[in-house]
């Protein structure tokens, strides 16, 4: 049996770890509330944007537009949104796993990383990191999304890349977060049209259709990126809150277990001492 001192030391160390995880849980709970509020207030914009673009594409029928068909390049841009910090359970690994299992080969993938953790893992696995926007994830604003968007769209129009994907964690509620990989460009008119409903009034464009799409699609992509950033931040804090909650309750469990062991060891040492004294006294007689 471990000595009393060893058990005590171990219990103290777990206790302080428990205190840290408890504090971290509280911090991420507060952050989660904030991020959740923000993500919710941005949601109507993206839903509307999605609806508008869907109905636009559904109504305008078959248009031949550069944003609607794949580029000639086999390279695929992946915007990967993870966290800058760990200790958030499976949050970061879920995203990186999603990418490694996506069937996109390492040679073809060009990573635009948002979040240091995802970047580090993918770099180690041999993916090409084109750009790193990790500072953005702390406090994402719309301009950040536009910056990323401009960069990938430039690469797309110059045919450096043929497709653009976005990997993020969708925030369903406080406990459910789903890692998602979606294709931003080319927009898939068939998939989008499904959501558009049966309204088939012909749509007019001002300026001309092609020019309008030229301006609207970037806004659409940009808003999707921004939405993904907001949801990811909320998910990150949700995931961390859960992870820290688990860690705290594990620590409590271990402490109670160690306390029992400690008391047993203490009792054993007292019993042993008594036995020794009595046997010593007996020997003198």
């Amino acid at each position, binding site marked *: 049996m471990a000595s009393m001192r060893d058990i005590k030391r171990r219990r103290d160390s777990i206790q302080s770890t428990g205190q840290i995880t408890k504090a971290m849980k509280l911090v991420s709970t507060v952050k989660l509330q904030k991020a959740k509020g923000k993500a919710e*207030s*941005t949601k109507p*914009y993206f839903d509307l944007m999605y609806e508008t673009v869907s*109905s636009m594409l559904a109504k305008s029928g078959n248009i031949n537009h550069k944003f609607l068909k794949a580029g000639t390049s086999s390279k695929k841009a992946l915007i990967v949104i993870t966290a800058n910090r760990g200790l958030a359970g499976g949050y970061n690994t879920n995203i990186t796993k999603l990418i490694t299992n996506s069937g996109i080969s390492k040679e073809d993938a060009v990573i635009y990383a948002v979040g240091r953790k995802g970047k580090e893992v993918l770099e180690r696995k041999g993916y090409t990191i084109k750009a790193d926007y990790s500072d953005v994830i702390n406090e994402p604003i719309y301009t950040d999304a536009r910056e990323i968007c401009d960069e990938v769209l430039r690469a797309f129009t110059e045919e450096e890349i043929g497709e653009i994907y976005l990997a993020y964690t969708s925030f369903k509620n406080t406990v459910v977060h789903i890692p998602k990989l979606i294709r931003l460009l080319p927009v898939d008119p068939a998939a989008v049209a499904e959501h558009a409903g049966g309204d088939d009034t*012909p749509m007019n*464009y*001002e300026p001309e259709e092609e020019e309008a799409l030229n301006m*609207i699609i970037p806004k659409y992509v940009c*808003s999707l990126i921004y939405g993904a950033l907001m949801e990811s931040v909320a998910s990150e804090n949700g995931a961390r809150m859960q992870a820290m909650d688990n860690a705290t309750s594990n620590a409590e469990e271990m402490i109670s277990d160690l306390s029992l062991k400690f008391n047993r060891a203490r009792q054993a040492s007292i019993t042993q001492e008594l036995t020794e004294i009595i046997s010593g006294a007996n020997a003198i007689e």
Partner: protein
Amino acid sequence: MADKTFKLIINTPDRKFYQGDATMVELTTSEGEIGVYADHIPLTSVLVPCVMVIHEGTAKKKAAVHGGIIEILKDKVTVLAEIAEWPDEIDVNRANEAKNRAERRLASKDADINIMRAELALKRSLARLGAVD
């Protein structure tokens, strides 16, 4: 005609800016200024920084809108603006300063400056100032 209303929704990435029944809305698209009544033909257009005037019967509301898209359907108008501000949210001094700065930049004809950016900044500040007075 004028008292027939349509549903107007204005959203920005950060908030629901406006939602209500309007009789007319004035705004500027990339092709020029337009006024939209109910029963307009379906139209999708691109907004430039401008002053948007929302008419609710006789009441008028002004707002500065900086770029976005507008989708007009028969009884519903959806504006997705990148930024939208009510007059009381605008800092007049800052907008004035931005306007002067942009004008000076454009006047200087320096090869280094980004004319498009300066023009956009000027448009934005003009939209803000227009919404205030």
